[in-house]
């Protein structure tokens, strides 16, 4: 064994054992306090990868990759000089020599040792528990093993444990296509969090999903076949269950072996005993945090929020910062989860254990709803349980411990059932915890607005960390921030621009409801007082033109963007149906659906480019861009394109651009669906659809994802059973992986869901808000979107589909319309008084067998400062179009 005793000290050493969620949070807390600069920090991590989001483990099965689950990046670790050893667990601690030894033989001396070893899954000591096909559910490696075994032919799975983790595991097995059983020893599911009524509501909903639940019975034996693999289990009620695999999720136990072995005090039921500063009672140089620790109240906390609090507490103690001294004396066990798609939340004293209290219960078995509030004699809200709908969780939890200003039943009754009181956060006391993940109180949020000058939710999130954990409080946080801004006299003008005090979404509703097809009418009736009768501005004109164009068939308007008044509202790109480039010339992009093009058409594009002297380039969206057309050339270029069967590619519009595809099943040996056909179908269906911003899409023919669908506004990936639909992806400056909205859809289901998604986006997004940003902003996020467009929670899906159907049936190629309209064509001139004269500034010089703009010509006679300020830039398709267009102050 090689011993590198590193005690040469310019800097004292902190050794952290365990790099889970709490360990990572501890490292962040060290960094925030500057301790990573003054100390050497060494981390020993058993798992083969750095910290990841164990709470979201199950999302691996809905497409989240291990990388996406990661909680840290190389930048953080390296940037703070942290020495992280993954796959090398600590095996021994010598408290006398103050060293920790890892499995590899590495020995590190410490001045401070922090144990964050977490917990291990409890496996009941039944015969057969170690047979082939038995698993636990704790790490990414566990998940990979479960997935591999399930895919190797398992058809039925049984989960031992009907608590929180058990339901997660059951959801995962079901997602893998297994017939799934849940075996729970207690008489109900989630016995810790919910009561009998809540358990009943949960049971019904889960059984409706096709899972089989066995409560009130234990596992007696795992049965195995001749080869030693699992065949099923015997239950304590005498029944038998056939199963090809078994997952144990019957709770966890603190991992305190290392501590025991080095003589640290351990609680009766496990857990390293620590004081209020998370320091072990046996050794002041050793701390324990998270699930391996027994807190000063004698409890071991298995939730991440208390673990985070302990991480902060320990870091504060190590920093010895008296001003910021923290203590951990116990934590709220409130939780809100989505298990198998069902909201389950409990908070405060959910079971009324303190006694002398009354329950307010609302239960609707049909809808799978159960809500219970525990109220003290004096009216204090003590706690509660919510199953099926946990919308009110954020508000209720914050009120726990106080007397709510409205009758409690009004908080749990459904809207429309008597008293749908929506209690605003204004009524909360300052001590009320808004974000329990980061323990941020209302007072702290108010301070962020009042003292730190935050004027938006993202700013408050950055300043306080509120809402950056599980995200369940973002709704309440938003209400609170808005209320604080309003109270502080900070005008939160949600208006579209200086002309309209209403949002784009509100204007959309007005245009649709009142069938207003004219910008002027909208401005004069619904504009700000001072803007009525006026000119409008460059912000609202194209935004309203887009809304009218999106809704044209439904409101009886002409969908042609150059019709009548509409022509005056369009940005120059839409006005000339081409993309303006930096020297005043335009580029031309005909539609090439799905990126599929026949040789004859390729030849036509080549001939046109040659004849008009255009620069050609292949775009990222699998089509061909022709640059350098002068405005007066556009009609003759398009006359030839239309003649050859091309139509507008809408590269200039805030509308569908392209649907990329890979060659799919037809040619590719890996393809499982015909991705080209689907891409063409989708591109032709949504072509010309005006939207708040451009829309990009792609279809991949298998999971290898060659079409990069997950970086698109809506992306489709083929599966053996159909199609998976991803939404809200983006490339560009702020890349975002798309979220999986639905799986294994048929062709018809896929199209219907995209119809709904796009129309809901068009209806509710802000101007120039891509789907990625919209989805991040949407209250309730992906879950809400899924509720609306999959489960039709707002009852608007029929309307959304009808609007899309109208768009599809009314679509006409706007370039074909334009080349046949002499009055419109007359506008395509450089000079009104010299229609045949080209703009002399639009000139070109040769480059690499083609040509490029004559840039020196552009800069002749310009004030140098203006040029410097402008820099290089183009407007149109591609990255430059992502330059914020609302840069003008309102």
């Amino acid at each position, binding site marked *: 064994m090689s011993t590198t005793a590193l005690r040469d000290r310019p800097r004292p050493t902190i050794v952290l054992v365990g790099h889970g969620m709490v360990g990572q949070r501890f490292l962040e807390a060290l960094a925030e306090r500057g301790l990573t600069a003054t100390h050497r920090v060494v981390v020993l991590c058993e798992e083969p990868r750095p910290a990841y989001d164990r709470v979201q483990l199950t999302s691996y099965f809905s497409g989240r990759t291990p990388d996406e689950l990661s909680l840290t990046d190389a930048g953080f670790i390296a940037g703070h000089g942290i020495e992280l050893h993954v796959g090398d667990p600590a095996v021994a601690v010598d408290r006398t020599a103050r060293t920790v030894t890892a499995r590899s033989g590495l020995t590190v001396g410490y001045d401070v040792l922090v144990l964050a070893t977490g917990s291990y899954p409890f496996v009941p000591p039944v015969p057969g528990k170690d047979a082939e096909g038995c698993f636990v559910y704790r790490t990414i490696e566990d998940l990979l093993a479960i997935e591999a075994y399930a895919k190797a032919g398992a058809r039925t799975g049984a989960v031992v444990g009907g608590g929180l983790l058990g339901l997660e595991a059951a959801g995962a097995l079901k997602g893998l296509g297994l017939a799934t059983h849940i075996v729970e020893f207690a008489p109900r599911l989630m016995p810790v969090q919910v009561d009998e009524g809540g358990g009943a509501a949960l049971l019904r909903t889960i059984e409706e999903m096709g899972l089989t639940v066995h409560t009130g019975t234990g596992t007696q034996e795992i049965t195995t076949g001749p080869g030693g693999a699992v065949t099923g289990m015997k239950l304590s009620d005498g029944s038998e269950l056939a199963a090809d695999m078994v997952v144990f999720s019957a709770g966890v136990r603190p991992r305190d072996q290392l501590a025991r072995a080095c003589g640290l005090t351990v609680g009766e039921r496990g857990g390293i005993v620590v004081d209020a500063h998370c320091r072990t009672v046996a050794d002041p140089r050793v701390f324990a945090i998270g699930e391996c620790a027994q807190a000063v109240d004698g409890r071991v906390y298995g939730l991440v929020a208390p673990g985070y609090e302990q991480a902060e507490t320990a870091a504060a103690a190590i920093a010895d910062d008296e001003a910021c001294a923290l203590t951990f004396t116990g934590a709220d066990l409130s939780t809100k989860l989505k298990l198998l798609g069902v909201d389950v939340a409990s908070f405060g004293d959910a079971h009324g254990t303190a006694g002398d209290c009354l329950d307010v219960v609302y239960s609707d078995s049909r809808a799978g709803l159960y809500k219970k509030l525990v109220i003290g004699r004096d009216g204090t809200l003590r706690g509660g349980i919510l199953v099926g709908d946990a919308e009110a969780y954020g508000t209720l939890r914050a009120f726990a411990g106080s007397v709510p200003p409205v009758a409690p039943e009004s908080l749990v009754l459904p809207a429309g059932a008597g008293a749908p009181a929506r209690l605003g956060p204004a009524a909360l006391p300052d001590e009320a915890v808004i974000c329990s993940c980061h323990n941020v109180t209302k007072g702290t949020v108010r301070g962020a607005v009042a003292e730190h000058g935050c004027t938006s939710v993202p700013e408050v999130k950055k300043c306080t960390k509120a809402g950056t954990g599980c995200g369940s409080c973002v709704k309440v946080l938003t209400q609170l921030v808005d209320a604080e801004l309003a109270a502080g006299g900070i005008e939160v003008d949600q208006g579209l621009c200086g002309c309209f005090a209403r949002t784009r979404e509100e204007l959309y509703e007005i245009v649709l409801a009142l069938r207003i097809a004219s910008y002027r009418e909208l401005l004069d009736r619904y504009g700000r007082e001072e803007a009525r009768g006026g000119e*409008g501005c460059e912000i609202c004109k194209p935004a309203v033109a887009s809304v009218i164009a999106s809704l044209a068939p439904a409101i009886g308007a002409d969908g042609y963007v150059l019709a009548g008044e509409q022509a005056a509202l369009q940005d120059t790109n839409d*006005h000339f149906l081409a993309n303006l480039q930096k020297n005043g010339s335009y580029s031309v992009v005909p539609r090439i659906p799905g990126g599929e093009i026949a040789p004859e058409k390729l030849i036509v594009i080549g001939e046109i480019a040659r004849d008009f002297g255009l620069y050609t380039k292949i775009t990222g969206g699998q089509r061909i861009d022709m640059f350098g057309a002068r405005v007066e050339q556009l009609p003759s270029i398009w006359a030839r394109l239309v003649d050859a069967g091309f139509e507008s590619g809408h590269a200039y519009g805030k509308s569908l651009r392209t649907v990329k595809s890979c060659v799919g099943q037809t040619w590719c040996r890996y393809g499982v669906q015909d991705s080209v056909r689907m891409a063409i179908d989708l591109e032709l269906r949504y072509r010309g659809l005006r939207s708040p911003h451009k829309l990009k899409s792609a279809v991949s023919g298998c999971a290898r994802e060659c079409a990069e669908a997950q970086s698109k506004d809506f992306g489709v990936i083929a599966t053996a059973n159909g199609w998976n639909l991803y939404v809200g992806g983006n490339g560009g400056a702020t890349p975002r992986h798309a979220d999986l909205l639905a799986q294994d859809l048929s062709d018809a289901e896929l199209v219907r869901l995209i119809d709904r998604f796009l129309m809901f986006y068009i209806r509710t997004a802000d101007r120039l808000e891509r789907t990625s940003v919209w989805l991040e902003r949407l209250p309730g996020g992906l879950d809400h979107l899924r509720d609306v467009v999959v489960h039709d929670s707002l009852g608007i899906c029929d309307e959304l589909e009808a609007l899309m159907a109208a768009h599809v049936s009314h679509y006409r190629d706007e370039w074909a319309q334009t080349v046949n309209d002499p009055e419109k064509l007359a506008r395509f001139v450089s000079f009104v008084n010299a229609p045949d004269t080209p703009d002399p500034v639009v000139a070109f010089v040769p480059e690499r067998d083609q040509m490029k703009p004559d840039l020196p010509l552009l800069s002749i006679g310009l004030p140098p*400062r203006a040029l410097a300020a402008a820099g290089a830039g183009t407007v149109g398709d591609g990255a430059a179009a992502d330059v914020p267009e609302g840069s003008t102050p309102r």
Partner: protein
Amino acid sequence: MTLIPDTLTPDALTPEAPETAPAPEVPGPASGAADPKVQLLLPEGWFPLCDLSALLPGRGVAALLPDGRQAALFRDRSGRLYAIDNRDPFTGAAVLSRGLTGADRGRPYVASPLLKQRFDLTSGQCLDDETVRVAAYEVRAQ
């Protein structure tokens, strides 16, 4: 390949040469003509450019001037006319006529279609950079 000759002086102007432009003191608008002409005041006098009907309210057009410069002409909702230099001083491209118009506290402006800086239509002053200004012209229709 289309390469434009170096000269900035076009030879395709409308027949009404500047010297023969109507005198500026001709009275008021709409003096009975079916479609009034939009005219620009140049040092040589009023220079006719186009029919008023060629201007779409809220939208601009470009016109070529005798010395090779370009003007951007605009007509607002109430019929008022504006003219400023067509060249965007931030990029050098002759595109201001293709911008969208608006009004900032009553001051009419056009936003460049390239990088969106706004220019006062009456003075040519850039509203987003006080050191930048483009030429403004007097314009009328009769």
